């Protein structure tokens, strides 16, 4: 009972507005739990500092979902050519996302408008799977990719990951 009480007292993972129904009615609400796995391919050592872990943040454009992975995470795989790393993000909901990399204490957007759907993730019209198969997205100079429209991401307010 204590364990159950602890779970119910935990910080909610999500909040949902739902309808109530009268006896005998067949209507219902539907809640989708979890998300899809999205693998982000990026060049190795994007921060230009070989002595520091790369930190990669996948963040919904609304800011209500985000997750940070470090290149040292055992789940992060390296490509055979050792030049690319594959960051597997789990349970990603459908929507529009940005991929940010921490460079010199600043979060820099390296992929904008990553579209995650139930079937696949896309960069523009290209499925991310194809990008993974072909290697990393063409990001030659991440320093040149400071978000051209919005400027560097201020994670002191946007990111709840503590960075």
């Amino acid at each position, binding site marked *: 009972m204590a364990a159950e009480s602890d779970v119910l007292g*935990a910080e909610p993972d999500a*909040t949902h*507005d739902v*309808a*109530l129904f009268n006896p005998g009615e067949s209507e219902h609400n539907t*809640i989708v*739990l979890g998300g899809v796995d999205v693998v982000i391919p990026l060049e190795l050592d994007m921060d230009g500092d070989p002595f520091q872990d790369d930190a990669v943040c996948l963040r*919904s454009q609304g800011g209500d979902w985000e997750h940070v992975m470090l290149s040292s995470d055992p789940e992060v795989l390296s490509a055979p050519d050792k030049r690319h790393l594959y960051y597997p993000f789990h349970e990603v*909901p459908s929507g529009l996302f940005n991929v940010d990399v921490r460079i010199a204490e600043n979060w820099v957007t390296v992929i904008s408008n990553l579209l995650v759907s*139930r079937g696949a993730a896309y960069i523009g019209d290209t499925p991310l799977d194809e990008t993974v198969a072909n290697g990393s997205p063409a990001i030659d100079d991440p320093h040149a990719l400071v978000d051209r429209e919005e400027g560097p991401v201020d994670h002191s307010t946007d990111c709840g990951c503590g960075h």
Partner: protein
Amino acid sequence: MAKKHIVRQGECFSRIAARYGFTDWRALYDHPANSKLRKKRPNPNVIFPGDTIVVPENRVKEEPLPTGNLHRFVVHSPSKFLRIVFQTPKGVKLTNEPYSIRFDSGRTKKGTTGGDGLLNEPVAINEFAATLSIDDRTLSLNLGHLNPTGDVEEDDLSGIQARLNNLGYTAGPNDGIYGRNTRSALALVQVEEDLDVNGLPDQTTLAKLEALHGC
């Protein structure tokens, strides 16, 4: 004398009926003075804050009975049901899944979803929120808060956003505002359901969204 009631967030016909002493929500919903609202809100469980409901006079029922005897009267209190189908992003239903739920009244209940992934729990008329534990997740539920998708003031999109978020699309907060997240979430639904992709809440998309959500 009839009164007018302005709907507040979280209210439904049953709750409003109970507040004015009616045990049956149909006494309000089916009243001729509410015929316009009935057309606007074909689902009595999903009404919008600001909707005006005419509350008829609640007549006292008289029952002549002989004195000196014991008479038993049964009053039916209105009840509602929380009905949620849980599924994965791929559409797989979470069948026979154990859950625990605690209502804001303090009442706690354990159960298991059915073979169709449906959680079906009776809810007291004075319970407005609940915390649900299922599939190693904790969800906060606002009971009766789901707003309609259409015919609302100032083109408020909160009912659309709530359904999108329930269905696993990141539409942002249910603030009613048509922003980039709502637009992209609507576009995603349109892509996945093979509809015209414009990111707009057109009638076809809203009908599909309600069908996907179950209401």
